[in-house]
């Protein structure tokens, strides 16, 4: 039904959209709060928090739009995965730099480790969408079924 070259939404993708949307909401809310009210306490952690928020919003957008945004989405999810691993490790090694919970610190423990699992699911989903797109292209159809 859905044209995979145009839409990443459809099927399981819709659940990802909601989870991504929720994290985007949570990360944005939290980082705006942190940056506005006590930025000086941990500038690095809070800047990373804001970066996480931007990446989540971008990934949500890519999931909804599909099409050429799929490639951007792959980048967003990759940045996310690297981010959660780096920040997660750093928050254990240098706890002083991360006094408050952020989305990525302690591998997303404060969010039930969802931030750790989500980029993997996102990447798998985007890859599936890409694969279906190439499959329909090589079949010579315009995928309007």
């Amino acid at each position, binding site marked *: 039904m859905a044209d995979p070259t145009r839409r990443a939404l459809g099927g399981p993708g*819709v659940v990802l*959209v909601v989870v991504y949307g929720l994290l985007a909401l949570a990360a944005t809310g939290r980082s705006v709060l942190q940056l506005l*009210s006590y930025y000086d306490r941990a500038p690095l952690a809070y800047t990373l928090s804001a970066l996480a928020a931007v990446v989540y919003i971008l990934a949500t957008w890519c999931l909804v739009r599909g099409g050429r945004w799929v490639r951007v989405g792959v980048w967003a999810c990759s940045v996310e995965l690297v981010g959660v691993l780096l920040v997660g490790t750093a928050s254990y090694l240098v706890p002083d730099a991360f006094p408050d919970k952020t989305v990525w610190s302690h591998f997303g423990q404060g969010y039930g480790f969802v931030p750790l699992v989500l980029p993997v699911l996102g990447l798998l989903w985007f890859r599936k969408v890409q694969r279906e797109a190439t499959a329909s292209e090589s079949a010579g159809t315009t995928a309007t079924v």
Partner: protein
Amino acid sequence: MIQPLTYVVVALAVVLFAGSVYYAVKDRLMDDRLLAVAGLVEVGLLVLLVLGLANLGHITDSTEKATFAAYLVSLPLIPIGTSLLTIKEKSRWAMGSMAVGAFAVAVMAVRLQQIWNTYG
């Protein structure tokens, strides 16, 4: 007033969650009955938003006050977003996202209540 209302919202969100999971498993699409539950959750969250903002002075710590306000504002967006998705996406996956959204509402409403209770 806020505390009992959060209980009601959490209970309704749990009903919505259970209903959505049931629909997803049975491969049923959104119907009026479940949409009505989502509507009730939404009304509860909107009343909570108004009451919460009006009584924001109850929370003295500025950080917690800001968190409380951010939750109040974010919460009503969730049922609207997931309900709209069930219109666009006609499959059991839409019911799955409805369930995820309802679960998030329940958790966030419990957090709201925890913050509120800290201040008696």
